[in-house]
């Protein structure tokens, strides 16, 4: 029973947060909804034995990324209404088509299996604990190359953000 509760309560909070993200008018509320979702997800991760990932989720997502978001929201201003030009041609048609497709897929799956997804692989008997040592032993051996690549990506992103946001003064020699 605890198991179910440990799943259900965070799951409900996740969905609630997600809905707030989508439907709230005030950007600050949206951000708060996102924080709720991310935090609840961390709990779910713990129930899934991924403790280290849960911690990183809290620190990086709910902490750093959300701070960045809030900073930008504050910088831009929260009271800007959503401006829109005239309706995009064919947009309604496309959206309704997509929604119909989505609903029909859900209905199809529901009718076919209920909540039982017919997974290709059976559940493993081997229970693992996502400790930092286990993660590191894999990440710095077999995953070391992607790890290096992703670090380069991060550096590039940082530099480009700098280039985008920083106003370079035109040097006089250029004229």
């Amino acid at each position, binding site marked *: 029973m605890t198991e179910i509760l440990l799943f259900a309560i965070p799951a409900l909070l996740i969905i609630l947060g997600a809905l707030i993200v989508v439907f709230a008018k005030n950007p600050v509320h949206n951000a708060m909804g996102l924080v709720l979702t991310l935090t609840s997800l961390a709990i779910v991760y713990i129930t899934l034995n991924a403790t280290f990932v849960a911690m990183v989720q809290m620190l990086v997502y709910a902490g750093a990324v959300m701070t960045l978001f809030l900073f930008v929201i504050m910088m831009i201003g929260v009271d800007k209404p959503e401006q829109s030009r005239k309706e*995009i*041609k064919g*947009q309604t048609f*496309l*959206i309704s*088509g*997509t929604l119909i*497709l*989505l609903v029909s*897929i859900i209905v*199809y*799956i529901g009718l076919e299996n209920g909540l039982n997804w017919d997974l*290709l692989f059976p559940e493993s008997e081997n229970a693992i604990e996502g400790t930092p040592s286990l993660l590191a032993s894999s990440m710095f051996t077999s995953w070391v190359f992607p790890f290096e690549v992703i670090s380069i990506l991060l550096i590039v992103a940082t530099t480009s953000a700098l280039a985008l946001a920083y106003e370079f003064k035109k040097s006089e020699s250029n004229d």
Partner: protein
Amino acid sequence: MEILILAVVILPLLTALFLKVANRFLNELLTNFITINAALLSVAVSFFMFGYLLLDKFKPIKFELFEWYPSPQIIFEFYLDGLSGVMMILISGLSLVIQLFSTSYMSKDEKYTKYFEYFNFFVFSMLLLVLSGNFLVMFFGWELVGLSSYLLISFWYEKKSAAKAGNKAFILNRIGDFGFLIGLMMILNYFETFNFVNIFESVLIKQPSNLDLIILFLLLGAFGKSAQFPLFSWLPDAMEGPTPASALIHAATMVTAGVFMLVRVSPMLQFSELASLTIIGFGLLTALIAAFAAINQHDIKKVLAYSTISQLGFMFIAIGAGAYVAAIFHLVTHAFFKALLFLGAGAVIHEMHHEQNIHKMGGLRKKMPITAAMMGIGTLAISGIPPLAGFWSKDEILASVFSKGGIYYGFWALSLLAAFMTAFYMGRHWLLIFVKEPKNSLENIHEAPKNMTRPLILLGISTIFIGFINTPFFHGLEKVLEETLHHVEVTHLPKGLTLAVLAVLSIGAGFTGLVLAYLIYIFDIISYFKLKIPFINEIKNLSKNVIFINDMGNIVFVKGLKSVSRRVAVTVDAMTIDGIVNGISKYFLQSSKQLSYTQTGLVRNYVVYFGLFTLILVLIFLISPEALA
């Protein structure tokens, strides 16, 4: 001994180079000193070589300068036999005389030294051509001759017509040279050597199956260089050059290069019936057309130019009939009397202050008696009046053609007609310049300076006596060429009475022509008897425009090619190729324009597309799970 051949060739080249280098330090006197002395030396060496050759019974002398290419072996070599000996004497001798004349004619010209530089360069090229020991060296001379001719035609390039004439000569010569070059390639391909002697010996043993073709290509080169129909129209235009240069290049020597070449290849030529008929046919056509055209020209030099073409036609007739000795004989005599006529014309032009229209002259014989007399000799010689040079050579050609029999009787009759026309237009030429009552006053006209009249007298005397080198009674030239032509079947003159009758007919034709010219242009028989000749104006017009050959060439080649290429440009290029390319690009442009409507630039739109297609992907996996595996 052999190295003296090189000396003959290289002497004019060194002179030209020296004049080029020292151009700015030379005044007229110094230039004269250098060039005349060099020419004298050249003549001396030439005569010495010829004398040596004579004493050695015309045994060919070879001189190999260096090996050029090992396999197939090509040697830069020279070859002196009777044929090239005659040409060598002719070229160096005439060039000396004409240079003497030029010192006076070109005097006070800004580019005096440059003229002699080009002149010597031409002499070098021509000597290289005639003394060459194989086809490749000959081709060198052949091309250099074309180049120096171009330089001299457009010598006064400030005049637009001169520059144009130079271009025309060069381009028409290129057409011929193209044929010559192909002929050379075929020769190398078949015989694997360029050496004359080797080729001719192998021709005698085994004849290549495409001998006709080789000869025809070589013939194209000869037609271009010797201004035969249909490549002759450059020669009248070439008269834009200085008159002495015209005398040497476009009358006496260069244009005879084609004749020389054909006589040189006569061991091959004799086996090709087709080529012989082509040569005689085109030669006859050229002789007639050019003679007809000369009748109504008003430019003093153009009459002589057409006359040259016509006489070259005679030489080709002789070659076609197999009378190679007669062809070379006529070449020699023609060189003398045509040089004489040209130099005379040059003297007249010089004294008339560059007036060239013969209708504006007349009565000059009293003012310029020596010139008149000398040009009279030239006129009589070209008309075939004995005992002057032209009679002997022309009569030999006519008699040789006649002796071949069959269809050649017809050729003979037409040649006789051409000879008659020659006498007629040359008579008209001389009479209009020297005899007819002058229209303008001639007070300021004097006899030409001594530097001009002396060469004229020299040439005049030569013209009288040069004919005796090869008469039916004394076969001098035939002996000279014997060694050259000893494998070749040469058409000989008929014997006895036939020859006498033919000679009388030939003299009659010349005489009638001259008398007719006198009657029409001086006595004015047409208005005296109120004769009405039908179509006289049309005929005059036709003659003046050279039967519209230039215009026909213009229409066929220039306009025709233009319209064809324009049509090709429109249909093939613009419509087909551009059409395909443009069509493809237009198709892509249109379709991409259509597709670009989906690029709204709106992010939300893209999001929906992204979602839609992701869902479609999911659907596919759901429907067929195998796709996942």
